[in-house]
Structures are given as structure tokens and as C-alpha cells.
């Protein structure tokens, strides 16, 4: 395929105007030439290309999924992908020119609103890359606000999130510690945690605040917010996490949707873009990017973050998803996910598995399996079931959503029970 409209005649006229005889002469004039030959594949027609791409996709195997651990297999209403495929939305860029980008801007405003309504926080930004780096941004924000440089992480944070946090802290010369004291900038706790445990967070929030630290909740499975107490109610100053559950496909780990929401007093420290409502010259309502003086293109080395491109289209997907599901639909997602996980857990307990959760759980749980977790996982794999994440020799982290039918659950149980 060749996406260049210029004809030979056009090229000739343009070269004449520029005053060179060939394109080659034009690029030679200012660029040291590369004389080698690129080792790239042969060009393909669209027909050939699609065949090639589908061929690669077919070598992947998509199985019945009982894995979560930071990526959740929820139902995506058909209308989401139809709306996202509108070229006027996905082929634009950052809405610097507000008058031409009201669609994107209003959708960002709605996204910020949805995140605030779900989390009980005051203000959210337009999105961050994904959950783990969003959490790292929350840590940087906390250090900048408090002038302190220690981060406390409660046990039970997703291990990849912890790794990302440590990488960012190393780069920014901050320390991840195991105690809360007068150096602690923020206390971080994931809820439900990596193992699925749901904690009463009031106590931890109080502990953070009495040490003068900010309290950050990390939410990685946000459908849980449909039935769980919102973090804003239990004293979170920052909520950071992953919004993939809201209408975004698994897509082998990305693109996903980082989000961050804070209480009002932290607004000026928020990283990334923020959209605000305003009026135009005739008094009509409209939307613009606002508080841009926090951002890198204006503030340069004094910016609150270096983020520029974010995950706008994923934020739009989440916004459309939440609008489509509504209060009723999202509550059903949460109730069904909860019910399926508890159904599977109950059935597994009957065939000799032991649940290891120390607290109530939502849609993810850990079981001690009879025998080795690895052997079990490969038995499930043979039945076309992605059975869970092996945490230790005999521990398996299992997840259910509304996508796991009662039949799937019975198949899971009969595969592991050996009949």
C-alpha cells in the first residue's frame, strides 16, 4: 500500500518550485545520507497485508479466561467500538484548538466526572498511561506536595505496580519504605488488593493522616466501585489506578487507561491534562484544556509531570462504556462478577481446595490447590481454560467476571476435580 497522493506531474511541479531536480537531491542537501539498504519486508498490497496480519493473530490462542491480575475480561457493549471507530474522534489529537475539538473536550469533562462520581473524589485528570505509572505519578505528586521523600506501600500491591513504583522512585531519588513516620509522603494501599482482599481502609487513612502523609488508594478493578465504599468516603487524598475494566479490550496488556483523582487541595499538583467548562464569546457553554501552567509545554523543567500524550481514546471508551451501562448495568457487572467468583470458590472448596483470603473478596481470590499449581494450570489449559496465575507452588490466583458462565465454572471444576 502506498499512502501518498502526489502524481508524477505534481512531483515535477513541486520540485520546480522548490528549485531542485529530484527528491533525492532535495534530501541530500541537508541530511547526511544513509548508503546502506534497509532490511525490511517487501511492500504489501492491502489484501496481502490483511492476510499476513490475520495469520499472525491466528497463532495466538484466546481461551476461556479466569485470569485477572490487572487485566479484566469484562463484556464490552457493541456500541463502544462502533462509536470509537468514528474518524472525527480517533484521528484528532490533543484538543489544543478547543473550538475544533469540542467533542473530545466534552468527552474528557464527562470522563473526569465519571471518575469523580465513582471514586467520591473532587477532581480527576484527563487520563494517564495505565494503572502502574498512574500510581507512580501519585507518589511523585505526594512527595512534591509534602516535601517528603519516603513512600509506604501496604502489603498486597500488584507486584508489577510495585516494580514500576520502585523504578520511578529510583529515577526520582525517592525511597520505598516499610514504615510510616514523619518522612512518609504517602501511604499506598490497593483495594481490593492483588489477592482480592477487601479491606476497611478508614484505619489506614487515619494512620497516614496522623503522620502528616497523604493517603493513596490504588484501584485496579474499578467495577468493584459499583458495590464498594468509594475511596473519597474513607479518607483517600488520591485515587490512582487502571480503568481497563471499563470497555477496553485485553489487547495483550495495552493500550489501557490510567486514571488519577484527588481532593480539591491537590488540584494544582495534578499531572497531565485537565478539561474545564467555560463559555464562548456569545455566552454559550464550551470546554477547554485548563490549568495548563502545570504542564511541560509551558512550565518545562518546573512542570508537575512530563506527561504529554495520554490515553484519550481509552478515556473515551470508558466514558461511552459507563454511559451505556449506566447505574443498572454497572451494578450488574459487579454483582455478576462477585457471584461467579464466589460460586467457583464454593465449588472448589468442595473438591479439596482451600481459600486463602484473609478478608472478604470481590471477584478475585487465592486458593491453595491440592498438588502443584503448575500441573493444575496445564490441565486446565488442555481444556481450553486459562485457569489463574500461579503465585507459589500450590497457590493460584483466580478471577471471574460476568463473562464466565455457570457452564464455564462447572467445566473448570470438573477439569480440576479430575472427572
Amino acid at each position, binding site marked *: 500500500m502506498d499512502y501518498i497522493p502526489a502524481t508524477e506531474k505534481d512531483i515535477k511541479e513541486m520540485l520546480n518550485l522548490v528549485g531542485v531536480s529530484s527528491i533525492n537531491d532535495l534530501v541530500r542537501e541537508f541530511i547526511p545520507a544513509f548508503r546502506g539498504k534497509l532490511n525490511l519486508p517487501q511492500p504489501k498490497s492491502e489484501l496481502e497485508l490483511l492476510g499476513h496480519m490475520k495469520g499472525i493473530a491466528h497463532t495466538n490462542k484466546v481461551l476461556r479466561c479466569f485470569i485477572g491480575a490487572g487485566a479484566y475480561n469484562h463484556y464490552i457493549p457493541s456500541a463502544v467500538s462502533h462509536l470509537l471507530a468514528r474518524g472525527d474522534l480517533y484521528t484528532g489529537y490533543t484538543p489544543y484548538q478547543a473550538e475544533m475539538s469540542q467533542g473530545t473536550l466534552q468527552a474528557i469533562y464527562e470522563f473526569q466526572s465519571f471518575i469523580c462520581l465513582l471514586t467520591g473524589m473532587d477532581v480527576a485528570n484527563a487520563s494517564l498511561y495505565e494503572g502502574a505509572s498512574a500510581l507512580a505519578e501519585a507518589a511523585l505528586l505526594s512527595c512534591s506536595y509534602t516535601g517528603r521523600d519516603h513512600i509506604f506501600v501496604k502489603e498486597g500491591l500488584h507486584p508489577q505496580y510495585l516494580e514500576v513504583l520502585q523504578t520511578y522512585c529510583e529515577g526520582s531519588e525517592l525511597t520505598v519504605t516499610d514504615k510510616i513516620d514523619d518522612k512518609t509522603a504517602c501511604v499506598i494501599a490497593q483495594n481490593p488488593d492483588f489477592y482480592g482482599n477487601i479491606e476497611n481502609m478508614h484505619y489506614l487513612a487515619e494512620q497516614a493522616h496522623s503522620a502528616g502523609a497523604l493517603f493513596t488508594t490504588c484501584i485496579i478493578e474499578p467495577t468493584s466501585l459499583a458495590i464498594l465504599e468509594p475511596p473519597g468516603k474513607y479518607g483517600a487524598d488520591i485515587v490512582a489506578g487502571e480503568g481497563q475494566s471499563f470497555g477496553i479490550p485485553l*489487547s495483550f*496488556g495495552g493500550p489501557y487507561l490510567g486514571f488519577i483523582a484527588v481532593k480539591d487541595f491537590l488540584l494544582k499538583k495534578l499531572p497531565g491534562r485537565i478539561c474545564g467548562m467555560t463559555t464562548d464569546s456569545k455566552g454559550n457553554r464550551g470546554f477547554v484544556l485548563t490549568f495548563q501552567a502545570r504542564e511541560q509545554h509551558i512550565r518545562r523543567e518546573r512542570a508537575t509531570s512530563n506527561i504529554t500524550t495520554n490515553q484519550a481514546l481509552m478515556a473515551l471508551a470508558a466514558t461511552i462504556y459507563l454511559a451505556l451501562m449506566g447505574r443498572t448495568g454497572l451494578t450488574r457487572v459487579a454483582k455478576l462478577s462477585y457471584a461467579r467468583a464466589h460460586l467457583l470458590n464454593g465449588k472448589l472448596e468442595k473438591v479439596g481446595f482451600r481459600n486463602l483470603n484473609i478478608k472478604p473478596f470481590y471477584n478475585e481470590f487465592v486458593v491453595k490447590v491440592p498438588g502443584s499449581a503448575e500441573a493444575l494450570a496445564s490441565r486446565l489449559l488442555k481444556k481450553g481454560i486459562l485457569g489463574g496465575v500461579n503465585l507459589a507452588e500450590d497457590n493460584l490466583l483466580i478471577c471471574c467476571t460476568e463473562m464466565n458462565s455457570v457452564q464455564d465454572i462447572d467445566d473448570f471444576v470438573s477439569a480440576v476435580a479430575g472427572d
Partner: protein
Amino acid sequence: MKIIFEHEEENNTGHLQEEDVCIELPSDIVRKEPLPIPNVNEVDVVRHYTNLSRMNFGVDIGFYPLGSCTMKYNPKVNEDAARAEGFSNLHPLSPEECTQGSLKLMWELKEYLKDITGMDDFSLQPSAGAQSELLGVMIAKAHFRSKGEKRTKAIIPDSAHGTNPATASICKLETITIPSDSRGNMDIGRYKELLSPEVALVMLTNPNTLGLFDENTTEISHLAHKNGTLMYCDGANMNALLGITRPGDQGFDMIHLNLHKTFSTPHGGGGPGAGVLGVKSFLAEYLPIPQIVKRDSRYSLDYASKKSVGRVRSFYGNFGMHVRAYSYIHSWGTQIRKVSEHAVLNANYLQDLLKDTFDLAYDRRCAHEFVLSSRRFGEKSALNIAKRLMDYGFHPPTIYFPLIVPEALMIEPTETESKETLDRFVLALKKIASELKEHPEIVKQAPLSTPVGRLDEVAAARRPNLRWRPSQRQTKVE
């Protein structure tokens, strides 16, 4: 236009079946008030977002010469490829026997990018260019730490993207800003004076944000290396160089590419992008884990690197963007040089047609973009011209950037625009230039044809309304 929360409550029960579910959770952890999000029926949700899309502008609607952003056409076939079931529904923690296709694609993409840039290894993990920069600076720090050196400064020209100094500062490096010389290059004299043993890296955008290839690149690299300093290339402008020159051959030790610019993955209204980081072999051990490796004909994820700086995000990167970029590279294949040749031709054609109507920031042959100044039309003229361009059906160029050019209009046409489109754009800008002389009030009132008129940004910041609140229901706007 209503916002979604202003729709009247409607029946909305169709996406999932209702089942009798009993939630047995302690009362101190459950939501006590009803979930405060509205129920709107699908038909009204679809109309709502379709109508919002009609208030937006994208490459699919018209010319979008937003400088530094490479707003080229996004081939539709790449969208279909990324939506293939095997890619879009694959869980990232699936065992390797289920993910060979994805791993192969990522591995081959790295190979292509190595070849195109002249680097020795790549990480596809960073989510966008700015995160690649962050990773690059972390790698530079790790490199010097392992050599027992403490270097605390980064040299960055004043024409650089704001992300460069912002990134350096997050990593606690002090930025040394070097001014541009009269030809738009980094001032080599000042550079020589300020290059000291404390400088960890030089962050150079090449071609720079003025659209100019730095004529001293090789010398800058040579001096940096003699000083033990690393050369980092902000490859945002790689669309000028494909198959023509390789940053790896000019002495750069690291480069990030923005797949959403050069490799045509859609900009999505602000993202997702994908930033990928290429390095020379002596830095490869610091790249994030996991790395994708190929042994015999099997692909796997390798977590072994002991010196890796760690992870900058969960999983493996914005995979959906990798699929699109890979597909794009396959469509061009060995002919990819044509992309940059036409990007450069289109930019020079436009520059030559416009340089008498406006002031050219630097009168040189440009690469894939160029910067005009509208200073002869007075203060705020770049803003007014931008707004007026909308009335002619064009997205405005980037304005007031780079910061070193007054009343800057930064224009990047890309290779996917026809001569006819470029000619129409020139006519529009010339017409606006004469309007500025004859009827300046029209230009100052623009835009007149957009869904809203010029918006009050000062009021937005002074009286922030950043979210809808249930209490707004009573005082809703029509």
C-alpha cells in the same frame, strides 16, 4: 449540547441479564448510597457521542498540519488488524504457548526499528514519547552509577520539546539550556563552553522543532563522547529521516520514536501513543524487563537482566499500537524511504509558497516541517490566524512553539497530503494575511463557523468547573 449527566433518567437494562445475587459483604466496606451515575438508553447514548463526534476535527475530515505531531493519514486496514480476535482478546498473562503471534510481532517490530534507526536494541514498553525519555534518562543514570560516576546535568537546546527538560528534572538532573544560533542549530560555541564532566547526556531533537537538521550533529556527538556524555535523540521528528539517514549512525546512543507520529498509529484525540526506546548495545542491559527474545523459532519473555532499570508500566507496552505500526511498516516495506521523501518535499513546497507572506524563522531548506512567524501582523496574530484558519476548514498549525520564535506558526504537512490540498491551504493563509490588513476585525472574531465561538480560557481557570456534580441538575443549562 447536553452533557451525558443532563439526560433524563431512562430505562436501561439491556446489556446484561439480571440475576438474583446476594452480596454478603460487611456493611463497613460496601457502598451506602446508590451509585451516582445516570441510566440513559442506548439509543440516546449513541446519539450523544455521535453528535459529540460531529463537533470534532480529525485527519479523516481535513488537513491537520499540527507541527511536531505528524498528523498523517491513519490507514484503516491497520485498525482492522489490531481488532483481530487473536490480538484484541488476548490476556497479557496467557502462557507463552498462547501468545506466540503477539511475541513474534513485537520481536519483528523491534528488528525493523533497529534497522531503521541504526540502534542495537529496543524496548517497546514505554506508553508514549515522554515515558521513553524518562526511561532514557533512568538508563543514563544507571549507566553512570555502574561506572561509579555521579553526573547531574543534562544539556538541552532552547528549541527542544518541553518534555525534555521536564523529564530531566523528574530524574533530578539540572537542565543546561543552550541557545540556537542564527541558522537554527544548537549554538556549538556555547555547547563547547558548557559541556563539562558533570553532563550526563545531551538531549537533541533531530531534525529539531524548527524543522531543521542540526548541521553539527556529528561534531556534537563526537565532543559528547569524548567527554563520556551520552547522546539522546528525541526522535519525534523521525518522519523526516526514514531510509534517508539513521540517528544510530550519527553518534546517538539512545533514541525514542513515537509510533503514533512516524508510524501512523492514530492520535486518538490525545492518545494512546506508543514510545519505543532504542539503544546502542552497551546500554541494552539496562532496558526494562521483560525483553522479548527469540530462541530457535520460539519467542519468549525474558526477565533475566540483572542490570535492568526495572519496569515503567504494567505488562509489555501499548500492544495495540505495536500491531498498527508493524502493519504500517509491512505496507511500505523496503519502500519506506518514500514516506520521508514526500514529507520533506511537501514541507519545502509549502515553505517556499508561504515565506514571502510571513517571516521565515530561519531561511534554510527545511526537513519535514517549518516555522513561520507572523510578527509583521502584530501581537496575538498567530492566535488570530489559527482561529481564522478554522473558518477555511483547516486545523491550525501548532502555534507559539517553539518558544524562541515570536508569533510562531509551526507547519507540518506530512506526506499524505495532495498538492491540491497544500495549494488550498496556501490560498487560505494568503487570504487571511490580506484580511489582517484590510478587515482585521474578521480575523480577531474568528472562528465564526465552529460549533462554539472563541472560548474564554481565563474564566475556565479562574472559576474552575472540572466535573459535573449532582447539584448541577437543578441549575442545568438548557
